């Protein structure tokens, strides 16, 4: 996904969250370093199918041979029992010096199983590298392999419903969706029952700290809610988040919030869409990266029942919506004083306009759902793609 066309106009690009009931999702599954691709183009895969595998070089351990044998650095090679590249076992001698006509021997041992990587006659240090460890990546979504990235991985495609959250923590997980709270309720501990085990829980304007604790005890796969308090997030992670680059946290399940921090009703459209697919299998990823170009957390609900002609229709629509801010575009305001309000753009005046702060900025005029007409900085809205 994510390859956008190159001809957007300047007012076009305001990062919006995607919420599509049907689209074609492409997932690029790539190894961090080169390795073997285990699937072929055209293969049908399950979410857990391994698509590529590699070996990560092991950790390096430094053996201070010069000190252990009490020799000069330039003599190191002479006293080595193992050459560069040779395999060694844990606690196996790698260097030795005899003194007193062979009566006394001193050894240097390898701290790990692996191989000798470097013998330095400059520093007298010997580097032993542990054996490589395997690293596998799965398909993450069920679907079809549409492209092979030689030595790196593959692109898996599936028709699916696709919803982005605003912020998440925790990596890729798969499970069944289960709605446990309405869009404007609190998702509390009471709403989480034993049958929630291994499910992805959906709902609420706020997931409470107690609910997060209960979910951990029961063993859910994920929670998708409207908002979260920063304190509860800190308790869940064990540390405070300073910069929004997430996805690699060591947490028992993935949390995705759709609206923001604090209590915020989940957008009705997001909620309705998720609710429509209650009980369906979904793949979720909390990975968020907010910097130049944004990665938002995602919920993918594979829909193999969709026919290709239906999808062509959606594809055309997608390109249309990516034109950006134009009169009629549905938007959500993402900053005070209208935070969370939905509306449609009525005007896009070109000249700068003075706002309450006395800043002169580019603005738009929007008609909100409740009929109010408001002026907001263009920077403070996001496009709702449907």
């Amino acid at each position: 996904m994510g390859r956008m066309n190159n001809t957007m106009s300047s007012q076009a690009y305001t990062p919006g969250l995607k919420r599509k009931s049907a689209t074609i999702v492409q997932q690029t599954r790539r190894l961090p370093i080169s390795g073997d691709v285990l699937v072929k183009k055209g293969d049908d895969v399950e979410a857990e199918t391994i698509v590529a595998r590699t070996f990560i070089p092991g950790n390096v351990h430094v053996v201070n041979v010069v000190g252990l044998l009490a020799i000069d650095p330039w003599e190191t090679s002479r006293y080595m029992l193992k050459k560069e590249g040779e395999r060694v076992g844990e606690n196996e001698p790698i260097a030795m010096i005899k003194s007193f006509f062979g009566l006394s021997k001193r050894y240097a041992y390898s701290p790990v199983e692996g191989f000798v990587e470097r013998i330095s006659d400059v520093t007298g240090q010997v580097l032993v590298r542990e054996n490589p460890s395997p690293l596998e990546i799965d398909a993450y979504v069920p679907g079809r392999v549409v492209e092979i990235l030689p030595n790196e991985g593959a692109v898996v495609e599936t028709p699916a419903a696709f919803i982005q959250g605003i912020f998440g923590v925790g990596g890729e997980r798969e499970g069944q969706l289960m709605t446990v709270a309405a869009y404007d309720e609190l998702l509390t501990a009471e709403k989480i029952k034993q049958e929630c085990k291994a499910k992805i829980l959906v709902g609420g304007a706020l997931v409470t700290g107690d609910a997060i604790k209960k979910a951990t005890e029961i063993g859910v796969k994920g929670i998708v809610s409207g908002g979260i308090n920063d304190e509860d997030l800190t308790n869940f992670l064990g540390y405070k988040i300073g910069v929004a680059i997430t996805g690699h946290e060591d947490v028992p399940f993935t949390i995705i919030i759709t609206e923001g921090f604090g209590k915020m009703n989940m957008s009705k459209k997001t909620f309705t869409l998720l609710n429509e697919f209650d009980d369906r299998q979904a793949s979720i990823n909390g990975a968020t990266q907010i910097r130049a170009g944004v990665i938002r957390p995602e919920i993918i609900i594979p829909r193999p029942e969709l026919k290709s002609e239906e999808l062509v229709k959606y594809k055309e629509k997608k390109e249309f919506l990516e034109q950006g801010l134009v009169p009629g575009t549905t938007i959500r305001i993402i900053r005070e004083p209208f935070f969370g309000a939905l509306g449609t753009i009525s005007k896009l005046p070109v000249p700068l306009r003075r706002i309450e702060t006395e800043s002169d900025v580019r603005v738009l005029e929007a008609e909100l759902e409740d009929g109010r007409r408001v002026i907001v900085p263009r920077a403070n809205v996001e496009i709702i793609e449907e």
Partner: protein
Amino acid sequence: MEKKPEAIKVILATDCGSTTSKARFFKKIKNEYRFVASGEAPTTVEAPFEDVTMGVRNAVREVEELTGHKILAPNGIIVPARSEKEGVDLYVTTSSAGGGLQMMVGGVVKTMTAESAERAALGAGAIVMDIMAVDDGRRPHEKIGRIRHLRPDMILVAGGTDGGTISHVAEIAELIDAARPKPRLGTEFKLPIVYAGNIKARECIQDILDKTFALKMVDNIRPVLELENTEPARQVIHELFMEHVMSHAPGYDKLMKWTPIPIMPTPAAEGKMFRTIAETYNANVIGVGLGGATTNVYSIYEGKFVRTVSANLGMSYSICNVLKETETKNIIRWLPFSMEEEDLHDRLYNKMIRPTTIPQTVQDLVVEHAVAREALRLGFAHHKLLARPLRGVQRARTIADIFEQKTFEETYIDMLKVDWLSGTGGLLSHAPRRAQSALMLIDGFQPEGVTKIAQDSVFMMPHLGVLSTVHPKAAIEIFEKDCLVRVGTCIAPRGTAKEGEELMHVAAKMPDNSTISEHVKFGSIKKIPLKEGEKAELEITPFHGADIGRGIGKKRKAIVEGGVVGIILDARGRPIALPNAEDERKRKLIEWFKALNAYPEKLYETWGG
């Protein structure tokens, strides 16, 4: 065909920042180069766009819309100009997108060669991710793990004086080789390493590193302990930044074809302009670039140039890191109204996840200004750790040093001797009233004595920095006329007194020969209006053991310049003391804001003043 400098009439400069790409459009009007228009758009270097030129095009398109001047060609920028309304004669750009230039540095002794290497990398505009030294207390495998994990864009290795021992610096090289860090951008290219250590160790370093890395040798950064020579390393870092790093960042292959002028790291260009102030006015200058992701602090003090970057202190995408580094109460203390901690946290976290939004209400604006004060304060505290005398050098302590209980651990920056305090970056430049940015700078840096306050008008210092490498005349003209806004002069004695006691008396002879006499009480701020370009003669008398730069209790005469705010008489003491009681603190803040007319008058009432 390239035009001669005097034939250049229309100039476009862009900066690809971490969050926003900013285009600035300049024109020669009646024989003088002037700023004409600006355009901004989100930067698009990372997923899902992965093409920096899209953000640049969007920013430039905004300039086109505002000016009616056509600049964009289907595949780049129209250069040279084809008519009065089409094309530009020169296009230059800077970049800090994608996290800028991220470096790791290594040296033998943490406080000596490693620290010199850090200063060199920072001076070149890099973000220093980690500093490795033989004596940094970490075990070898921990260092290797760290290098692998961080994936720097470039590594600078220093160590040893010329002719000294080889084995220590070789040890660092061996660790780097063992780690084999994968570059962040592209798996294809060799990671550049700059070696700036003991020249006798070059052969050995080559043996260890040359196979796997793109190794470049430069003069030793500390040829002898008494000398720090960072310039050769800095130059090579710039070259390698273009050759190796930029050329692999998404879309930069295209961007580099748009202009023959090398893309400069944003902080390097910014630093160049702060140095221009120091050179032009022969002054000690402290500058700051408060960005979305980082805070860069520059000092040009008695000829020494030091830059530091606080990588995760910023006003948008790292705003929560400011909250994490300082404490909630340290932000709240700058708010003239009540706000629950939770409310503040929600606002800041929501800004972090939607970093391109801007305050629409004054309350939101004041919250961001409060965070900015803390980011500036922390950034400057970090700066002072590196702006300190070379260590490892034998020094004789003078009697005066002993009296002042000076240690060589402390910064050499004496705020009483700083002549200019100047700021740039989106938040400072876009502050609706200049008095707001003046107060943020003063509260964050706490200048002492007589200090000129200046700021970048619409954030164009990086643009002018890179422009100055090819067209210094245009850069200086625009800098003077349209970029550097003289906010005023801050008069602030070092010292404290009791509330209500007079801390200083200022007698001013104004340009119209009238005189003004101000008795300034401790804990207060006053303003003497004096326009930009005007000068006044001041006689400042400090009381209660305070110092205005001529010694404790001694008078100082000074000719000071005006500005859009005027002369700011700051008798709040140093360090600035905020009352502990909440109501009293809020009342004080409102009093200070009122004194400088910093925010809309009608709001003070609603805030409770």
